[in-house]
């Protein structure tokens, strides 16, 4: 099972969990399974064309997926996936 860090804005969809364990061979498969386990998450991450939205970065361990193999990036059980959306708050 791969660990997925859930950003604060999505935690209301994951029963307030900040980390969840998800099975999958590739990054795309993990995110899809995440959406199946926690309804509502998928449409927050993916746009209509099935691409990760442009204001969200997804990292496998320390590196952003676009610098790897995108959604095809293979993931191992010990990997950590981080979903990082743009946040505007500062005041």
């Amino acid at each position, binding site marked *: 099972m791969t660990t997925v*860090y859930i*950003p*604060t*804005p999505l935690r209301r969809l994951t029963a307030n969990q*900040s*980390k969840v364990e998800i099975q999958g061979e590739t990054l795309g498969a993990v995110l899809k399974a995440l959406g199946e386990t926690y309804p509502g998450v998928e449409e*927050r991450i993916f746009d209509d064309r099935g691409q990760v*939205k*442009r*204001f969200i*970065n997804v*990292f496998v361990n*320390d*590196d*952003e997926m*676009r*610098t790897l193999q995108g959604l095809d990036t293979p993931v191992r059980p010990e990997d950590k996936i*981080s979903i*990082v*959306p*743009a*946040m*505007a*708050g*500062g*005041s």
Partner: protein
Amino acid sequence: MSGANGRIFPATSEKDTMPILTRDQLLARISERVPETTPREVHDWLQNGADVRVIDIRERDEWIQGHIPGATHLSRSFLELQIEQIEPNRDARIVLYCAGGVRSLLAAANLQEMGYTNVLSMIGGFNGWKNLGLDIEIPRYLTPAQRERYDRHLILPELGEAGQIKLLDGKVLLVGAGGLGSPAALYLAAAGVGTIGIIDYDLVDRTNLQRQILHGEATIGQPKVDSAIQRLHDLNPDIEVIGYREPLTSHNAFEILRGYDVVLNGSDNFPTRYLVNDACHMLGIPLVDASIFMFEGQVTVYQPADPSRGIEGGPCYRCLYPDPPPPGEVPSCAEAGVLGVLPGIIGSIQAVEAIKLIAEIGEPLVGRLLMYDALAQEFRTLNVRRDPDCPLCGDHPTLYELIDYEQFCGVPAAPVTPSAT
């Protein structure tokens, strides 16, 4: 340990090995084993870029009156204690000078005892140098009051007096005097960053006080910039604080940002974030960016490339977030809440980065996104890269002027306030 006769040490044998010398006898003896050089020779070495380290061993009040350009100051009273921090290599060529060439002779002998093999004393000292009409450098220095105030910085080798002078010459603009801007402003002012600009057109209200530690009950209802100026001047009257009580827009951004060394982003909306990013990139100003939400924060530094200073640069906000989220998709702190301490942590990290950039020390948080989760009490650092397709900083940029950021972010045209809630 005193014996029956009350003596601690056997004095007689010491007396045999330690002859009594007059001042002149001591100097004569030392000059036999310490080689000397002349101001002209030292000048030529420095001009030709020869491998030589010139150390001024006079007292501080002599040094600040003027010194040999390129010399390092290390007063004789700390010479043996600190020489290894300046020159650990025992075979390096070291020239010591004082005012007239006597103290440097004695000091050179002390370094020889530490194993320095190539120490020279400069004949005639700094007076000899000046008598030849050679150039001197008059250093900038801190006043006694500044030395007292910044004492804990001055004893840090990474900062010292030179670093503190850089901070005093530094200019930082804070976008927003709110959650992030409050701790950042306080620490930057305390650190002696000489010019702090603050742009915010909001007024202090009671809901701010849970986290915006610049303000207090006494300033409720006042403009935040006025409240900030009062508080910062109380903390450190040595600095200048400039308030801009206006919204930051595409029309005034260049005028306000130009001239600052670092911009620190504490705004609370996407249009201002894209505006500040674009303006900073176009002006070549490093941007210490951060955002907070509930219990979570992000910090990074967007540093434009500057080949003339050897700065490679990193990604910008648009590399990370090419498009803003549609309005309403990401809730604000006013809607979802924020832990009051959270901006204290994140804004303080921003202050650290601003100080590092100004003092040119350490590794800036460029190309790395620092994530903080207060509930898990966890920091993570993620790598972020410049996007070659970025319209602003990519290989083929298309964005050369500021745009309409409300329209870009799809929000109705409303005044952009850095810290409205």
